């Protein structure tokens, strides 16, 4: 069987509370990173608090609701980012949260590789019917990468985000299992 934990540039590991808390403190200091990814106000938490939070999440295990991963490079095993899937198993829908905290790995294909692993996990391991995500309209780099991964734009909630006094839209995207399977056979040809 296929190794679903290994891509071309990265591999995914268990979420590591200690390592994750350490980098998270640094990543929280990058307000642009937070504002590109999140909708809540940027905030800073102690390494201790973060570690405890990640530990608590792990204690809960792989519950049906949440599947978090840390992402490391194949080249030098550097912890560069994360992704997580929040799953509604009743209706077969998974929501993605994904990010590369280490800026020097932006725009080099790592995100694409991560999303490939993420969708593969969602569709072939969790067996969901669709995968969803939201993205700020002021983050065109993410939007393009999601389109490349096969996500379709399904609409926008008008002016729901207020940052620096400017109102912007959230864009909502989705990919269906059939669409993803189609892309996989396309890749092989």
């Amino acid at each position, binding site marked *: 069987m296929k190794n679903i934990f290994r891509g071309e540039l990265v591999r995914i590991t268990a979420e590591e509370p200690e390592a994750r808390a350490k980098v998270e403190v640094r990543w929280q200091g990058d307000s642009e990173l937070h504002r590109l990814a999140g909708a*809540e106000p940027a905030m800073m938490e102690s390494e201790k608090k973060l570690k405890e939070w990640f530990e608590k999440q792990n204690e809960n295990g792989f519950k049906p609701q949440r599947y978090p991963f840390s992402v490391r490079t194949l080249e030098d095993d550097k912890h560069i980012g994360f992704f997580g899937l929040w799953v509604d198993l*009743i209706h077969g829908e998974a929501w993605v949260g994904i990010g590369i905290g280490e800026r020097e790995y932006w725009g080099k294909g790592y995100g694409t590789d991560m999303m490939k692993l993420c969708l593969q996990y969602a569709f072939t391991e969790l067996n969901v019917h669709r995968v969803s995500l939201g993205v700020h309209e002021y983050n065109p780099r993410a939007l393009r990468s999601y389109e490349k991964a096969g996500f*379709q734009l399904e609409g926008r909630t*008008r002016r729901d985000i207020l940052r620096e006094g400017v109102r912007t839209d959230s864009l909502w995207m989705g990919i269906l299992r059939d669409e993803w399977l189609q892309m996989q056979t396309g890749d092989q040809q």
Partner: protein
Amino acid sequence: MFNIQTQLFDGQDVRLGPIDHEKDPEVESKWTHDSDFMRMYDTDPARPMSAAMVKKQYEKLEKQIEENKEMYYFTIRARSDDRLLGKAMIERIEWSNGNGLIRIGIGSPEDHRKGYGSQGMQMLLRFAFAELNLFRVSAEVPEYNEPAVALLKKFGFVEEVRRRQALERDGRRWDLLVFGLLKDDWQNQAEG
């Protein structure tokens, strides 16, 4: 116009009120045994609940509201006899962005099509925009809930997102629709 004389919580036939922990559990328990109501109101699996379970749920709900401060919950009651008709709430409020998600349900089939939901919606929107000062509200509704879609459109909500095949019920997939209403559009509408 600065109008604090017009009551926020009084409509023509209905009013918004708090939970009655003594009387309401019995009534809501009945609603949960009506699968039509449950499947229109929520996408979670419909589950019949006893009055005791509903009572526990109310307590949990009020605790959550106090702790998280991101939700306002009202019961919809008849003005004539204070009977519980339904519920109305604003949840998942993002204070920094000024947005929230609204939800309204009228429990018994015999109370449908009497304008109660519409009156509840009118008060809930005024509360959201004129009291909480939100900038916009959203509503999520399965495409098969046609009465809800009609109610939202009547109040000026715009269909903004169609999450394709996001739900499965009765052996087929359904879209989930997200509607949005901005404060300006609500205000223009209220003024004429």
